[in-house]
């Protein structure tokens, strides 16, 4: 017979009370594990989605005297005395150490070209990557331009069905061909271009597959075509003007990515679009703070449950404590018995709470994430943390009841009913 036998036997033979105590703590631990697991997955998901919302790294040729103003559209010297980027640079970018953090690598060749007799900026782009990068692009519904372009729309019924009611251009990415054009709203207006129209560029025929809705950005004034066809038509095989990169920077330092890309592309100027990164990180931080706040409240409630239950349990055992004291148990023996029970309850609730938390997270995740890419796995670190929190909580909540029990007057305690 040791002190721990008293604790274990009490829990074993008073199953109802033990289960009640375990449930009190288990609810708290389960909720916290569920919240943390869900918010982690959601953070990851939000981070991924945010990282896909436009580029956060811009790669342009290194230049001492030229300003490549993509946003302001001052492109007069873009192809002059700078060493342009090359198609083969894409492979180098994909070879960096943090390559798994690369989400989108969107190369572009930007060149002035005569279209319908007027100067315009033609952008050769990898449609697959470009449309992933610019998910906000929408195709203007042909109906809105019915009067002026009804004949062209009729000639291209497939496009019509795909782009009706301003659908996301993202869904076009599989069907776009090299010689298809996506035209910015301002450019379409000035050059009088409409969906389905054929356009002659440097002797090559291209077809307008869609007019983009106004974005408020430089894209409104640009005309996008397949990268390969622009390179070929304008005699710039393999050349690139700039590369936009969207990196998953939720879990990596953006500066480190910039450094790695600079290393593999010594002739290029690699810049982090800090504003984009910061605002994304801020969003994720807000979300994190929210989940930490909720977890703290739940933990507080959980510990209050344990505290009140332990207090009630000690009160019920007053006479028993009196018997122990009459037999010569010291105060610390009483504290040991009660804290050992709290430890065992905490341990059990921690392990079960972790399992229940992971289980309920798996059930709940589909309701929170639209496109469920994240999977919830077993996390030993979290299991240990959950158990440690549960045990600590159980012990902390039981310290006062244990001390109170130890201080009971033995003669008074023996008289308790």
């Amino acid at each position, binding site marked *: *017979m*040791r*002190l721990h*036998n*008293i604790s274990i*036997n*009490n829990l*074993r*033979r*008073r199953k109802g009370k033990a289960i009640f105590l375990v449930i009190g703590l288990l609810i708290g631990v389960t909720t916290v594990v569920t919240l943390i697991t869900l918010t982690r997955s959601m953070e990851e998901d939000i981070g991924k989605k945010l990282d896909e919302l436009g580029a956060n790294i811009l790669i342009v040729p290194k230049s001492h005297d030229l300003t490549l103003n993509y946003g302001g559209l001052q492109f007069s010297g873009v192809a002059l005395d700078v060493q342009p980027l090359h198609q083969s640079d894409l492979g180098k970018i994909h070879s960096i150490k943090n390559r798994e953090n690369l989400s989108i690598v969107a190369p572009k060749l930007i060149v002035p070209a005569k279209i319908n007799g007027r100067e315009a900026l033609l952008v050769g782009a990898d449609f697959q990557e470009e449309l992933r990068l610019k998910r906000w692009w929408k195709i203007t519904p042909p109906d809105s331009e019915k009067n002026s372009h009804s004949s062209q729309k009729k000639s291209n019924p497939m496009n019509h069905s795909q782009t009706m009611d301003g659908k996301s251009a993202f869904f076009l990415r599989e069907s776009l061909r090299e010689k298809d054009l996506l035209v910015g709203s301002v450019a379409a207006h000035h050059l009088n271009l409409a969906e389905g129209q054929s356009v002659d560029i440097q002797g090559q025929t291209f077809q307008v597959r869609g007019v983009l809705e106004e974005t408020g950005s430089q894209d409104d004034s640009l005309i996008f075509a397949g990268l390969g066809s622009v390179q070929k038509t304008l005699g710039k095989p393999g050349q690139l003007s700039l590369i936009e990169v969207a990196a998953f920077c939720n879990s990596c330092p953006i500066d480190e990515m910039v450094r790695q890309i600079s290393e593999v592309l010594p002739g290029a100027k690699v810049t982090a679009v800090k504003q984009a990164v910061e605002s994304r990180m801020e969003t994720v931080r807000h979300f994190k703070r929210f989940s930490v706040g909720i977890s703290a409240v739940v933990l507080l409630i959980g510990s209050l449950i344990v505290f009140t239950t332990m207090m009630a349990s000690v009160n019920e055992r007053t*006479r*028993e404590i*009196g*018997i*122990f*004291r*009459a*037999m*010569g*148990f*010291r*105060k*610390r*023996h009483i504290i040991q018995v009660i804290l050992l029970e709290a430890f065992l309850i905490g341990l059990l609730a921690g392990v079960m709470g972790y399992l229940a938390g992971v289980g309920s997270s798996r059930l709940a995740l589909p309701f929170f994430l639209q496109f469920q890419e994240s999977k919830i796995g077993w996390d030993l670190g979290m299991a240990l943390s959950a158990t440690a929190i549960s045990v600590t909580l159980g012990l902390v909540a039981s310290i006062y009841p244990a001390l109170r029990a130890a201080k009971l*007057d*033995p*003669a008074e305690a*023996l008289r308790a009913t």
Partner: protein
Amino acid sequence: MSLIELKKISKYYQSDGEQVAALKDLNLNVEVGEFIAVMGPSGSGKSTLLNILGGLSQPSAGELSVEGIDIYQLKGEKLADYRREYIGFVFQSFQLIPYLTILENVMLPLAIIPSRNGNQREIGARVLQKVGLVEKARRLPNQLSGGEQERVAIARALVNNAPIILADEPTGNLDSVTGREIMGLLQGLNSGGQTIIMVTHNPENTRYAHRIVQLKDGQVGA
């Protein structure tokens, strides 16, 4: 030197703002191997006396010496050690721990004596043998009759070889036949050298005692 010396022991309680004396200047000496029956009407201070002797309740005044040691001058947890080393309690309502088996209840006082951890089961079984309950060692208290539970309580009081057994109405909850069995058991222990101080209402029990201490209004009567 007597085993137990009570000198001018008083104990006061506060009741409705007034001080009530449970014991008043009580003097009593108990020799080794004595069997004393403490009698008296309700409220005469019998249980208070037993609690003071057992180190459970500090007297308001006076001195309790056991083997020459002033018990209530002991510091810290020494009073708990005194209870463990010197006292075996037998309570009227058995006071067994409901979730421990009979054997575990008997072994309970040994749980805090590390040197005796090794052969606890052996000691427990031997004591249960003495009270005739070894075959029920694995049962829980609620599976035993009142008399059997009282015997378990006696076995528990014996297990650490305490020189003094304090019994509070040990037959109070038992029928007369079982009561006589319990008294026979206590008498046997006393014959073995243990000092017994027993509080009782039952005059029949006094025939087992060497001496009767009659309490009245917190004082030893004539």
